[in-house]
């Protein structure tokens, strides 16, 4: 009996020791970063912020950047600017014990200054892919000592992806999808290969209508007609900026495509669609049903 009590106490002591322990996480450059204090975390970048909240560590986040707008709880937190144009002083003023971000954060000089002030800074690979999302989740799980929860979250993504696949494989013909990034009718960019949008289209069982180039190029009416997409995908804000579905159908060339004729103009939220964060699996399921109108979505999915 006495021994068992001792055993319980010693294991409790071990647990509390583990909680206070320093963890070592590998960053994007392969360097080992030692992290001991996660009491005041500043997250930069939508997916990183989402992961921290998804792992139940949201109350430790003291400030974020403007690209972090999910979950709703981050709305109340101070914003230190956009993750690609940071100012080091504004970040230091928030007195973070840990800065959690990806290689998208910049400019490099600001990151260098932050490191020099002695704030622990963990920079993970941005990598907008399924593996990249899981890597970030596992690494952040390690930071907060919640590996089991992180592994469950990563597994959940795989399960969701498998479910989406089970549905879209029922349809023989893969729809051709054109992804348009819009910021007003004057700024329309079409995604080629290699982008986050391209990755999402593939995961949702469709094919990118444009395969001739990598990254984004301005949309031209002739290229749209030549690509002949079955559906055009926008980000929700982007579609709003050009006047919704009506506005999209008036864009030069769109009306002449199968997508225009069948009014297959669809949209999804920016962060949800392109961030490759913890909601990746759910986003792929949503996109699968958006892009395959033949599929009937069961209630509860």
């Amino acid at each position, binding site marked *: 009996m006495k021994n068992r009590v001792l055993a319980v106490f010693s294991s409790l002591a071990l647990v509390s020791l583990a909680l206070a322990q320093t963890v070592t996480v590998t960053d994007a450059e392969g360097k080992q970063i030692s992290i001991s204090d996660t009491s005041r975390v500043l997250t930069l970048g939508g997916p990183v912020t989402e992961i921290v909240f998804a792992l139940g560590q949201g109350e430790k986040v003291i400030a974020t950047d403007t690209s972090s707008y999910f979950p709703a709880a981050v709305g109340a937190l101070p914003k230190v600017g956009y993750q690609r144009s940071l100012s080091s002083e504004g970040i*230091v003023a928030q007195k973070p014990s840990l800065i959690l971000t990806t290689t998208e954060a910049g400019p490099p000089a*600001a990151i*260098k200054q932050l490191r020099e002030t002695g704030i622990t800074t963990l920079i993970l690979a941005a990598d907008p892919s399924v593996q990249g999302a899981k890597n970030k989740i596992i690494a952040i799980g390690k930071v907060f000592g919640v590996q089991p929860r992180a592994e469950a979250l990563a597994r959940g993504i795989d399960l969701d992806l498998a479910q989406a696949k089970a549905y879209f494989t029922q349809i023989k013909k893969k729809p051709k999808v054109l992804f348009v990034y819009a910021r007003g009718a004057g700024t329309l960019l079409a995604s080629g290969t290699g982008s986050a949008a391209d990755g999402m289209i593939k995961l949702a069982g469709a094919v990118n209508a444009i395969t001739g180039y990598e990254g984004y190029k301005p949309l031209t009416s002739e290229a749209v007609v030549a690509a002949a997409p079955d559906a055009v995908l926008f980000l929700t804000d982007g579609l709003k900026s050009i006047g919704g579905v009506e506005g999209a159908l008036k864009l030069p060339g769109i009306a002449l495509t199968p997508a225009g004729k069948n009014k297959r103009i669809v949209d999804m939220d920016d962060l949800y669609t392109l961030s490759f964060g913890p909601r990746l699996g759910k986003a792929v399921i949503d996109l699968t049903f958006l892009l395959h109108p033949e599929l009937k979505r069961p209630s509860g999915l």
Partner: protein
Amino acid sequence: MILTRQTPTRTSRATLILTGLLGFLICTIIFSIGIGAVKIEPLQVLGILARAIGLDLGIAFESQQEAVMLIIRLPRVLLGILVGAALALSGAVMQGLFRNPLADPGLIGVSSGAALAAVAMIVLGVTVFNANNLLALPVAAFAGGLATTLLVYRVLSQNGRVMVGTMLLAGIAIAALSGAATGLLTFVATDAQLRSITFWSLGSLGGATWETLGVAAPFLVLTLLIMLRFSRALNAFTLGEAEAGHLGVDVERIKLAAIVVTALAVGAAVSVVGIIGFVGLIVPHLLRISLGADHRFLLPGCILLGSSLLLCADLIARTIVAPAELPIGIVTALLGAPFFLWMLIKSRQVGA
């Protein structure tokens, strides 16, 4: 020399104004170090400085304040002083040399050339240098600025003589050309690249570290000292090139020296902080109103006022949307352009 002789009252008035400007600069420096997202009291500034050289004054401050001041703010303020001084002084030298009040340091193509080189490197991803090296871009920008100036100079000098009037027009053409090239690169740039381009086209002191300061400071200090020595020659130039020649000024040598030194100064400034407009144009104008056209007072005045105005602009840039930051070029243009217009209207009224 008759040219530089002044009445005693004029000289003492100028000395008084210069002393006032020095006081203004010192105040601006103290405020710039103290104010920001992290507040540091003037006494704490002293305490931190003393600690840095090994003295303990017994003034309490947080380690966070010390880190912000020594690692972020101090190099930033020092760089701001040097860049502001270099831009304003280069502006005064250009205006004196071209005898044109619209001349500014960008005229000889150095800033647009530097920005173009930097943008090209960002977008085309030239990885000749190590991408992690923070100095790769400044070095490219500096080289681009000097190369452009050299081109302008070569195109417009005949038999070793510089056609000053044509150079003004050439400056406009070069600016348009590099603007178009920069626009083309912006067109193909990605989101991340666009952010870096903003830095070059609108300027920011946010990237100041001891490392960048260490690289830029020698150029800036040296060129400032050389430019101060142009005052007598520039006074002679106000009468016209031929008259300056009659007064014993080696006109061609001075023109070449002034162009090279301004290119070095502005090139060094742009390469570390990007393009910051209006400082080089407005500061000399402001000083001419109060100090008169004598370059012996105008040039030191430009150093004092240029640096304090740039520090003020930077203070606004980094506090107005804190904890985020505005590009400083937006601040200088927003304040500078309306002020310049007001000055033009006022001078026209005086003229009429």
